[in-house]
């Protein structure tokens, strides 16, 4: 019983992390139709910022966290301005290749100018302490992760439903040109999408760093892969889909860890992706894919 409760909490906290990651991809995709594979490098920038802050500025974890989130948000907005704005109205393939290019350039910058080796940051270990809740031992990190994700989702929903810019972002996912024709600035909508994406990357970075404790140039690869899978399963372009996909991926991963016999442990990912492939056979566009415009001229 205790074991089951523990695993459910594991699944929820993994899912929460994947949901945060997937939302960061999905919010940019929904507005711009761009799969931002450089999202992982934005997360890595957060990790390196923590290194820099811890080494040069302060040991105060709160300041380190704020610095990292600010760095990822700024990086994301800067990438939009420098790399993605010129290809904004280009073919989706061009955007995809640009994102890969940005990702490779950033990885090599980390490699050349920082270090090819992992660098440890220990300031966030305190987040990951064992606590007893109702007789079940869990990690405080899992609690923080789940609470953060819930707060982020609520905040995002309120923003997208209550504010004019939020509404414009949802409208832009359907007909960007029409949003421009109402006079709302395209630049603002895009910059905002990347800002939110960067903030989400920063939050995810905190939890990944607290768990791993070190950052290396390929730090972002695994997270962006998980985010991509979660988005595909949930339905690319759908924000609820990204959240659902994230939690589903977390649940399936933990279920495989628990259910697979020890000697098949190495096949965990194969089973996870096999299940995801089956989901896609059932719903080829993802579970909550947005309804496609039929394109009929009225």
């Amino acid at each position, binding site marked *: 019983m205790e074991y089951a409760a523990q695993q459910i909490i594991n699944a929820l906290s993994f899912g929460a992390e994947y949901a945060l990651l997937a939302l960061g991809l999905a919010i940019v995709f929904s507005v711009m139709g761009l799969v931002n594979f450089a999202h992982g490098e934005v997360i890595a920038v957060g990790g390196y910022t923590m290194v820099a802050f811890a080494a040069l500025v302060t040991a105060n974890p709160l300041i380190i966290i704020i610095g990292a989130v600010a760095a990822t948000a700024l990086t994301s907005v800067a990438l939009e301005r420098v790399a993605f704005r010129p290809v904004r109205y280009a073919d989706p393939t061009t955007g995809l290749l640009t994102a890969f290019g940005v990702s490779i350039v950033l990885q090599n910058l980390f490699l050349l100018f920082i270090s090819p080796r992992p660098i440890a940051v220990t300031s966030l270990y305190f987040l990951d302490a064992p606590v007893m809740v109702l007789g079940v031992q869990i990690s405080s990190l899992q609690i923080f992760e789940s609470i953060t994700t819930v707060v982020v989702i609520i905040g995002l929903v309120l923003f997208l439903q209550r504010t*004019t810019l939020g509404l414009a972002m949802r409208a832009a996912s359907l007909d960007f040109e029409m949003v*421009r024709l109402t*006079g709302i600035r395209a630049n603002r909508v895009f910059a905002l999408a990347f800002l939110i994406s960067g903030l989400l990357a920063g939050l995810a970075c905190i939890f990944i760093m607290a768990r791993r404790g070190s950052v290396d140039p390929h730090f972002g690869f695994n997270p962006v892969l998980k985010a991509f899978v979660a988005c595909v399963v949930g339905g690319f372009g759908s924000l609820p889909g990204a959240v659902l996909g994230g939690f589903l991926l977390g649940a399936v991963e933990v279920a495989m860890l628990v259910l697979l016999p020890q000697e098949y442990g190495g096949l965990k990912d194969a089973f996870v992706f096999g299940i995801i492939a089956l989901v896609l056979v059932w719903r080829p566009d993802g579970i909550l894919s*947005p309804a496609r*415009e039929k394109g009929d001229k009225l």
Partner: protein
Amino acid sequence: MLDIQNLQVFHGPIEAVHGISLSVASGQCVALLGPNGAGKTSTISAICGIAQASGTIAFEGTDLAKVSVEDRIGRGIAVSPEGRRIFSNLSVEANLRIGGGIRSDRENIQADIDKWFDTFPILGERRSQPGGTLSGGEQQMLAIARALMSRPKILLLDEPSLGLAPRIVAQVFQMIAQLRSEGMTILLVEQNARQALDISDYGYLLNNGRIQAQGTSAELGGSKDMMAKLTGLV
């Protein structure tokens, strides 16, 4: 108010409009008539800045050549586009909110929304429904109301009667006539020549990207032979 000289509009390598000139004076309702493919929507797109064009488009004396799409709307041009292009995933009220998105007088935006719900009670009843669930006629009303939410100086209406039942078309034209009588400056693009001329001061006949005839509504409406010959309409 709007003065267009020698406008050419291109879609990639294809020239859709071959150097037309037209003007709309303040308070006027001007009809731009013509069959499918005449270049009407291309002209509207050029005025909004979303089509590649040459020639001059002057709005209130300023050349718009270097003005972005968003700034043109900010200067007082609003458009209800062909096919209405309602944000079908957003509620009726949210569609209107976005229409007023460039305004800074927040307190009056809600008042304007309520005004439109009074004008079109059906929109008010469905304020929280997704825009995509409205009928064609309701969507057209919403598209016009959304455009007017920015409190424009000129309203560009692109084929507001397209795909609507005759009874609904009559309602749409009645609404446009009402707007005109309230002093709104309107450029009305239509295939439905007779009904459009009934509510317009002046008209241009466009075919194959050129203006074939122009005149006051009475003049154009009186020479039905010419219109029939040029456009197959009437």
